[in-house]
């Protein structure tokens, strides 16, 4: 499935909806979206990953990039990751660096 990354900003929350397969060939698309958000006055970056089917090492890099690009003041959320993505986040320890939630409502609270 083709990869897409669509971003949207509401108040101080930036959302990026990811779908398809995130690997070395598609990571630049995601990275570009992150860059377009960086520098804006937001406090939360929310990645909606319900339809993200696969994440490779290069995909993980963009998450790291997102966190470092946004800085320590911006909280990074991953919403409803599929099992493969969640598994990868856990094994590589990156789940400590982000907040993983089941649904978007948990972010807004």
């Amino acid at each position, binding site marked *: 499935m083709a990869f897409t990354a669509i971003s949207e900003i509401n108040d101080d929350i930036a959302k990026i909806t990811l779908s398809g397969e995130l690997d070395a060939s598609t990571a630049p698309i995601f990275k570009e979206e992150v860059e377009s958000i960086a520098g804006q006055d937001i406090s939360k970056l929310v990645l909606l990953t319900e339809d993200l089917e696969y994440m490779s090492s290069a995909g993980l890099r963009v998450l790291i990039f997102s966190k470092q690009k946004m800085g320590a003041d911006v909280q990074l959320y991953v919403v409803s990751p599929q099992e493969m993505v969640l598994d990868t986040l856990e*094994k590589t*320890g990156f789940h400590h*660096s982000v907040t993983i939630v089941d649904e978007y409502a948990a972010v807004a609270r």
Partner: protein
Amino acid sequence: MTITERIDIHPTHNYENYKLRRGKPFPFGATLVPGGVNFSIFSSHATSCTLVLFKKHAEQPMVEIPFPEEFRIGNVYCMVVFDLDYENLEYGYRMDGPNDFAAGQWFDKTKILSDPYGKIMGGRDVWGVLPDWNDIYQHRSRIVFDDFDWEDDRPLEIEPEDQIIYEMHVRSFTRDASSGIKEKHQGTFAGIRDKIPYLKELGVNAIELMPIFEFDEFENSRINPETGEMLLNYWGYSTVDFFAPKAGYAATGKLGMQADELKALVKELHKNGIEIILDVVFNHTAEGNEQGPTISFRGIDNKTYYMLTPEGYYFNFSGCGNTLNCNNPIVRNLVLDCLRYWAEEYHIDGFRFDLASILGRDPWGFPLANPPLLESLAFDPILAKCKLIAEAWDAGGLYQVGSFPAYGRWAEWNGKYRDTLRKFIKGDATVGEMAQRLQGSPDLYAWEGRAPATSINFITAHDGFTLMDLVSYNGKHNQANGENNNDGDNSNESWNCGWEGVTDDPAINALRRRQIKNAVAMLMVSQGVPMILMGDELGRTKHGNNNTYCHDNQLNWLDWQLLETNVDLFRFFKHCIAFRKAHPVLRNRQHFQNQDYVGSGYADITWHGTKAWNADWSPDSRSLAFMLCGKHARQGTFTDNYIYVAMNVHWQANWFELPGLPTGMNWHVFANTGVPSPADIWQPGTEPQLENQTGMLLGDRSVAILVGK
């Protein structure tokens, strides 16, 4: 205007559909550069070199690109290849050149060779999956991403004398289902991360991992004729790639994320105050002897990388077929680059060098007075805060405990500590030598101005019996290794307490537990750095096998149910470790002076026996006691409690007269192994006062530790 892309790196050459450019010789290996990958490899004797590129897991290469002659600078072939899908890429090299055994040249362009500087490796992605032996490229170099979210992590730089090391094997630690962690994490780096709370509770502040550089568990794999079981190269003391973490040790190995998983482990260990030391094997490689496989070095530059006899055979100082030519300047740089990489990229806190004496031999095998490699490592700016620990002997007969070229930096696995403690614990009369070992072996190290922390004190390690087996077996029982019990050390200095192996005899079992407690009590009050072997705190057994290098089964896997059955041992270890941490007088930075230099009225250390102030140094003495003056802690810079340790390795109980304390202080009992659990040990700080302040009866084969406060 913003400039987002480099304009100075662009293709100048073409090969088929691939765009190329002259590369940079440094760094060696495959490095991501804007738009491409820089490949650089050294060979002093090759006549040509070809880069071989594979799509991940593909049987055949997608392209083979000969290095244009103008891309060679000196002996280095370097080239940038543009527009590669580097995440799904595997690469290797073919080298052409002379093939002349007597001259030590093994060039063979039919072989595809892995990169000596490869940062991750495919081919053995998942532990224990039988390889396809027909694969033309078994160990496939891959490219690693550089970034990791380290946040503010860096190596902990714990003072050497404050370390308490736990030696462990990645897979053995959590592979058994009794570990209780997620199945996918069992036996992996992620599994260790899950068990950090356990390590923290135990109190160790450094883990030392048996080899984690990529190795081939199927190297020399064979079927045990007696059991039909597959025997593997399980421990991994045979490196395939010095820069790559073992993919099979990562739950994410099949995704190629082993570097991330290991880094996540390091970061989490550091957050919990635990350092990570790697057991590194630079003495030989997995290419073995003349019959071994050609993986990398042999086909790239055999004569440079290996020590060869004048006839072209491999010297075998390692006991493993070949010997890496560590004091050749090229190999020396490889070792240095490798360790720098692990320190910088993985935030590794220290290294333990397997058979380190080989690193001090010249290219013809003679020991050097001033080995350049050891000196370079000692003075390297990037490794400046890393612990450097030598296994100060080799299989070629060089034994350098106490004389390893140290440059003020190197610590040593103290084999003499191990042997002396083992003899003393089983009841041999060795009080004179014991006194040296308890003090951090000043007889070995003080003369050269080396600190007590030079001595890595241990009673058990991966080689040899576990502590439970040390008190349960007189001899080794290695039949399961399929070598007719000929492998493994015959000199174990062990005692079975009256019965060989498992027994129902309650008296023998009680004695064994006491002996285990005696051992850890002595270890934790010794000056120097204590190291314990994974599982000894749980009474782990390997059923008398003292060389379990080949078993991927319960013989090696830690049985976590022991935590329930042997909770008294765990508790004893835990409190002994906490006691050591609570008392700086046990962790001195300099050797004792045997005098009072702070005006306390007591010398820094005093020796006693069954009579206070009167140690029995006679050749058949089996009792020894010592007292540490708390005012001399760390050369008088700390005020600590007084500590008195009495050791009775005699088969009869003995009355120990206690040395008097300064007015107002009393003796309190921290531990007495002669008393049944739980009164055998107290949480540090809660020690009850001793009723009789002038003496105590110490049971047979027992150790008591008192605190004067």
